[in-house]
């Protein structure tokens, strides 16, 4: 009897699960985790609240502003680097000590990331602890005071950051500097000659002018939307827009920095797509995958990449695609031993100039791009930043557009590269690196 009883139970249980599975709506192609859809609310003071309830035990909340290094006044570049550094310093309400200890005690993490067009203060904590740390996030993001002695006490962090900047990062910063000249040209890192020159007043006036409610977004992953709306309403932010900088234009040009390295790092770029033009943006992203963005197989030769095929293993080349609200850059970054750098850069430039894709390359690029976009949704840290950028810069969700982009669209943007004016940035041992007019 006992065994019979058990067996009926088992069958019932199985049926129960089967019935539940059948009752669920058909899962879409890509949704490994049951998530609720993205919800967005715009408050009366202009703050955009966007959240996605992941039903996961970890919550992440961010306060983002559409203000970045491009908003820095000239002669005072590097403010954004100091903002990152100052995110854990004393605020109007909390001391540096209490800010750090409350975050630590909750097992949470407070970070400040910034780009050329955005600043994002975010905190992650377990769902139970998030309520305790949200006030500290509000403090850090909206109540900065920048006490002079704390700034000078923490200056070593800026120096440490600058010493740790890798040449592959530096070459991208140099590329921006020469390509845009102003605005987007400003680096994410403080220029070394301005370290320690930013006073409390300079930082406070930047914050007062740029971190305002009309260009703010509050984003959350793993938090109920109404809870986040109430939180956003409690933020004390000045109303109004930030001063928008001059529109960006890609100028051609060249910058070369000689160092004692045995390698040469070279970035070559042409005008790319801005965030406003979603179709061109996706087309460039697909072209980037076709030309090769990193090596998808570990220790592989990157045989699928046109750039890698062209340089025949003499150096590492990866295609570059950067999009900003009103401008973009498309090109490649190469690293090669000094003796081969000339060959590598010339061959890669030839590929860039004559770029085109066929059907099989395009379908591979589409698969790679979709995987990359989905990977962004997988990592909640990146997802918070992605939601913030979508809210602040009206950036569209690209996933739905990928399939609508045809081979003619991609080849149309590729043909622009044939005659585009090039910008070249190079750092390292440049003895064999060709000049821009030789490319």
């Amino acid at each position: 009897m006992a065994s019979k009883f058990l067996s009926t139970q088992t069958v019932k249980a199985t049926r129960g699960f089967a019935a539940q599975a059948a009752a669920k709506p058909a899962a879409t192609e890509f949704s490994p985790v049951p998530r609720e859809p993205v919800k967005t609310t715009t408050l009366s003071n202009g703050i955009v609240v966007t959240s996605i309830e992941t039903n996961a035990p970890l919550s992440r909340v961010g306060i983002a502003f559409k203000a970045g290094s491009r908003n820095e006044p000239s002669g005072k570049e590097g403010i954004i680097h100091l903002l990152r550094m100052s995110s854990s310093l004393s605020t109007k309400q909390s001391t540096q000590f209490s800010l750090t200890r409350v975050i630590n005690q909750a097992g949470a993490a407070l970070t400040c990331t910034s780009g050329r067009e955005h600043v994002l203060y975010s905190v992650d904590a377990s769902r139970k602890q998030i309520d305790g740390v949200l006030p500290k996030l509000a403090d850090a993001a909206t109540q900065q005071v920048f006490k002079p002695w704390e700034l000078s006490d923490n200056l070593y962090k800026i120096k440490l950051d600058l010493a740790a900047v890798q040449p592959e990062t530096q070459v991208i910063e140099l590329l921006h500097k020469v390509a845009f000249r102003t605005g987007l040209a400003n680096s994410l890192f403080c220029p070394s000659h301005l370290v320690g020159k930013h006073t409390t007043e300079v930082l406070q006036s930047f914050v007062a002018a740029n971190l305002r409610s009309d260009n703010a977004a509050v984003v959350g992953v793993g938090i109920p939307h109404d809870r986040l709306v109430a939180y956003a309403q409690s933020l004390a932010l000045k109303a109004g827009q930030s001063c928008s900088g001059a529109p960006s234009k890609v100028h051609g040009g060249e910058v070369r920095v000689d160092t004692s390295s045995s390698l040469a790092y070279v970035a070559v770029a042409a005008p790319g797509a801005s965030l406003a033009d979603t179709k061109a943006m996706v087309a460039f992203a697909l072209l980037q995958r076709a030309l090769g963005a990193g090596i998808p197989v570990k220790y592989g030769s990157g045989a699928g990449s046109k750039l890698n095929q062209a340089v025949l293993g003499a150096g590492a080349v990866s295609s570059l695609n950067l999009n900003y609200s009103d401008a973009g850059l498309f090109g490649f970054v190469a690293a090669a031993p000094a003796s081969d750098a000339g060959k590598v850069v010339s061959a890669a430039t030839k590929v860039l100039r004559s770029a085109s894709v066929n059907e099989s390359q395009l379908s591979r690029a589409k698969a790679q791009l979709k995987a990359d976009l989905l990977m962004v949704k997988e990592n909640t840290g990146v997802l918070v930043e992605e939601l913030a950028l979508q809210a602040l810069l009206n950036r569209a969700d690209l996933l739905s557009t990928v399939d609508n982009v045809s081979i003619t669209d991609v080849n149309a943007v590729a043909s622009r590269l044939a005659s585009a004016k090039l910008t070249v940035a190079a750092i390292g041992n440049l003895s064999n690196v060709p000049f821009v007019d030789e490319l």
Partner: protein
Amino acid sequence: MAVTKAPGFINQLRATLGRFAYNASGFNKYGLMHDDVLFETPDVEEAIRRLPQKVVDDRNYRIMRALQYSGLKKYLPREQWTKYEEDVKYLQPYLQEVIKERQEKESWEKLF
């Protein structure tokens, strides 16, 4: 009526007593201010570290001048004595902040 008069009277008394005590303490005869002659506890040292450079320079000047006159066994000319009304407690806001921070740390250490 007595109620409205009392605070004025007390304030006046306090000011008079304060001025008397200030002049009796003697440091003003060397041109020093109240916050120049605080006992240098770790709190005071930290507060001094946070002062703006201009305020520190003025403070150091007053202290050096006082040491010079003290060595000469002389007071400053009477018109250069610091007056009770002109004394600025320039260190107090910084000192209060340092003390608050220390107390906050101590209460945390007790809790955890």
